[in-house]
């Protein structure tokens, strides 16, 4: 029994800080911003935080797959799907939900396949591939849609109203969680973990690591597509640069969620908690009125909270074992 407890603690110790952070922030919200706990408030929260939650989920399997893989291109990739939905897809006359979802997911997957191919076949390190991807797509997005505009299909932009708790956004999120949960139970998921923890071991025990890396990227691609649909629903239009800001936010959520960019620790639950924590940080900060210095105050407090939570992670997770 104690062994199982110990095992559980080992498995979930990285979640202590993000879960604690979310709990503390919720508590502050209960005083500062109680509307959050109404159905409408919650609906708004889900609506606004969904793109970030999904983006943070999307980069998790890639981070897990090792080689220091941080997908810097996630933001522009979401932006790319967003601008192409409102420009290309609508101009082709495809506006049905099926078309939009299929398009978003397929484009997300194609992009991730491109990244994975560069990593696997050209053997450029993942962070560099994704940096290049970040630059390429942020340029391409501006070429496709030089300024914010365009209109999302009506059914999609209606999501942005967000007063119903059981909204399509919630269902997309639930679908993503369920998909992830199922994926986590496959052998493939174990292979991704193994490859991320030690690629040489995975290779020598006969796992086809190339296929595994593609699988990690494909799962990221699906989530990228879902994130893009939710972002499009939120802003009801296309915006070539909104996606870009998601990159750093998603990585921050990932790290706040206890995933180490150095590999070996973390998971998608942490990323989700991290994303929720980031949303709540902004809710709490917006509940104060800092007047003329409001933006700067937010920026500074946000930075301080980031550093503090990371320091807490250090305290909460076991100290690193002495090197042999």
């Amino acid at each position, binding site marked *: 029994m104690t062994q199982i407890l110990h095992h559980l603690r080992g498995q979930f110790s990285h979640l202590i800080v993000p879960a604690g952070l979310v709990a503390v922030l919720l508590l502050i919200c209960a005083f500062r911003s109680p509307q959050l706990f109404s159905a409408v408030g919650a609906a708004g929260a889900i609506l606004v935080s969904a793109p970030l939650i999904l983006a943070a989920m999307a980069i998790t399997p890639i981070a897990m797959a090792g080689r220091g893989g941080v997908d810097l291109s996630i933001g522009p990739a979401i932006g790319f799907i967003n601008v192409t939905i409102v420009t290309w897809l609508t101009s082709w006359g495809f506006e049905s939900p099926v078309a939009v979802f299929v398009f978003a997911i397929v484009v997300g997957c194609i992009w991730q396949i491109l990244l994975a191919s560069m990593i696997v076949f050209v053997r450029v390190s993942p962070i560099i591939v994704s940096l290049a991807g970040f630059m390429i797509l942020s340029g391409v997005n501006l070429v496709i849609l030089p300024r914010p505009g365009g209109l999302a299909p009506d059914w999609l932009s209606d999501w942005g109203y967000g007063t119903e708790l059981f909204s399509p956004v919630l269902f997309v999120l639930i679908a993503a969680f369920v998909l992830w949960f199922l994926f986590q139970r496959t052998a493939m998921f174990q*292979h991704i973990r193994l490859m991320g923890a030690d690629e040489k071991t995975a290779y020598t025990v006969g796992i086809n690591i190339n296929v595994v890396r593609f699988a990690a990227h494909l799962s990221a691609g699906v989530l990228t597509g879902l994130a893009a649909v939710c972002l499009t629903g939120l802003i009801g239009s296309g915006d070539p640069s909104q996606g870009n800001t998601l990159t750093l936010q998603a990585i921050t959520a990932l790290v706040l969620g206890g995933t180490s960019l150095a590999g070996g620790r973390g998971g998608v639950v942490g990323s989700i908690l991290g994303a929720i924590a980031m949303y709540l940080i902004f809710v709490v900060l917006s509940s104060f009125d800092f007047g003329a210095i409001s933006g700067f105050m937010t920026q500074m407090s946000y930075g301080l909270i980031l550093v503090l939570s990371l320091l807490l992670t250090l305290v909460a997770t076991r100290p690193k074992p002495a090197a042999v």
Partner: protein
Amino acid sequence: MPLVTLKNISKNFGETHALRGANLETRLGEIHAIVGENGSGKSTMAKIISGVIVPDAGSVEVLGVHPKNPNDAIAAGVSTIFQEIMLAEDLTVYENTFAGSDSLWTKKYSVAEKRKITGEILGRLVGEPVNPDAIVRTLPLNIKQWIVIARAILNRPKVLIFDESSAALDLEATNRLHDEMRKLRDDGSCVILVTHRIAELVKITDSATVLRDGETVGRLSKEEITEENILKMMSASSSAEASTQARKVISTEQKPVLFVEGCKVTPDAKPFDFKVHAGEIVGIAGLDGAGQTEFLRQLSCIEAPAAGQVMVCDSSVETHELASLAEAEDAGITYVSGDRKLEGIFPNLSVFENFGVALMDRLTRRSGVIARDLIGAKLDVEMERLAIKLGHKSDKISTLSGGNQQKVLIARAFARSPRVIVLNDPARGVDVGTKQDLYKHLREFASNGGAVVYLSSEIEEFYNFAHRADVFVNKTIFASFKEQDINEDHVLSAMFGRTGHIEFDAQVEATVR
């Protein structure tokens, strides 16, 4: 019908010819050894059989297939334990044991099964229970080695390759490993063994292939496998002049250079004293986990002992405490790690840099500029002395064979001109010729007034070499033998905590009488 046939294999790494027209043939139900000097191509050959490396020329047939990647080989029934221990350190023991046992999408075993089987098999191999949920990073090297072995034998392979798998194991564990090998052989598998432990070879192999500079120089049958034969074939020049060089007699009247009194390796261990004199070579032995590794680290001030203080005596009068690694280094105590990959080499740097980095603190001009010429000169000397084989000094150290990397590390330690050199199993993975070079070198060092503390997992290493051997049992020095008493019987029974038939006075006077 041969199981593994390698014909005329050549493999180049850049300008290095690792194998040139090498051959190998093994059959069912035999234990076959591949022997050769460091860098002679043994591991390369093992990797070719396991599909990791595809040769540039020649034909490979393993169990009827031509493996192009590990998967081909594994599917055909090959399991390999590589020289480097392949483990995902951040995952659990059972995940590592069952790594690769599931197919790409579907699972073959449930987690419960995996944990249960892991517990059973490791319990049997290690000889004590191992928690299947432990994170591998927290385990000692020998357990890690066993996990890899467990993984390899899990699926009852037809061809099983051990590339220096006993190097991290102690004597008793090696015997258990040999039992496993024999069992596999008797079940009709073929075991291919790469080892530098000649005794091991003589004891359990049925046939052997000898490599020299990437070429097969011969195949020996069971009767032909003798130390003499193997050594003769391995190197062109016979370097195996068993050295019976006279050693200096150590005067114990003198103050020891390095000593600890009332040392406790762990808080609940029995305290003991330890000293080493100038000119003395002290061997350290013990079974895995008996505390000798920790002791070595404490002696060289990498960690502090649980009790007791490491003392150094400079210029034979003043003694003072050593409190940190820096102080130990300043006092001339140098540690050579047994884990080359983790705490030895800088894989991204050249051989020159790997060597020079240890000398930067003394061979740096007042301006802060490193004296590369002086370092280069030192390296030349050490390369000559230890017969380090390499292309250019500017080549990355990671392109050297394991044994040669080890030699660079030892050279690095000597170059610091220490007073005491503490070595943690330095000959692990080093070929016989080089071992002799190393002993010679250490003996010279000792006769010039240096002191040597030498941990080894092979008792044979101490014969004709150490002035004294201290045997650890249960985190304390259980027995201490002076040089004429060092032999397999004594040391081995002491390692198991038996006093045997020799009289000795445990811990009363733990130095040479």
